[in-house]
């Protein structure tokens, strides 16, 4: 239906996803739901990166694939973050039987 979708539309969608994720991080109280919202924000950033990569690819520059490469790296970092974060979550849950982030203000190293 009438040509490719403009990059602006993809970036607007990415911004909406990011905003929803930020709202989730700020409003949810269970730590695991905060994690889910963080994942949403990471994916919103990825979508913007891929959209910009296509933009530069159509412009025909050498840096066209950098965006997709960064998305690949973000995926790896997200995997590491989830593993460590959920480990912390399980450790906290063993200590106190809740994952309410509002009661965790005294957690120190």
């Amino acid at each position: 239906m009438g040509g490719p979708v403009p990059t602006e539309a993809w970036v607007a969608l990415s911004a909406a996803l990011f905003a929803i994720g930020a709202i989730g991080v700020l409003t949810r109280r269970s730590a695991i739901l905060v994690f889910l919202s963080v994942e949403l924000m990471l994916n919103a950033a990825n979508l913007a990166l891929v959209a910009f990569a296509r933009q530069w690819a159509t412009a025909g520059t050498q840096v066209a694939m950098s965006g997709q490469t960064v998305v690949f790296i973000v995926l790896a970092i997200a995997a590491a973050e989830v593993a460590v974060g959920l480990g912390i979550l399980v450790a906290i849950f063993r200590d106190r039987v809740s994952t309410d982030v509002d009661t965790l203000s005294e957690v120190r190293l």
Partner: protein
Amino acid sequence: MLVFIVLSVVMLIGAVGVVTLRQPVHAALSLVGTLLTLAIAYVQLHAHFLAAIQVIVYAGAIMVLFLFVIMLLNLGEEGPVAPRLAWIRPAAWIAGAVTVVGIVVTVYADPRALPDAATLAAVFTGSGVEQIADQLFGPYVLTFQLVGVLLLTGIVGAVGLVQRKAVTSSAAQGRAVGAAGRTPSKAPPMDAGATAERGR
């Protein structure tokens, strides 16, 4: 454009579900929906390799980890157990049958032939794997190695976190149980055995 509109509507509904649904399992499954639509979006943006990786790593591995922890911690709304819906089972059968019929009809009734090997190779050349590899092992090689170090640190950190916690908490429990004298004979050896099991 039509694909984009449908895609963005589904994606935003899933995202709102992540933020608003009260059951953690429902929120996680809602995020799976969003991630799968994101994979379709990557296909639309000519990033086929990233679409596959998105499905495998994000919608597969990471979300399984999330669901595993949600169910391990038994999080959820307190309240009456939801009754099994009577229409779920026939609906599942119907959905499966529709899928099979759709695939069979598509395979046998679609007049278009499969593209030959040369066409497929040309398509996959543009799909990003080679270019990403060139970037990853060219200008980004330092980042690549740092990500490797980060992943190793993450593994050590996650294992160490859970491990040390298990040893100290069970030792503390053993001491507490011994002091309180609730079950003085049984609990400490069982704890020690459990710790040793976990250590291996």
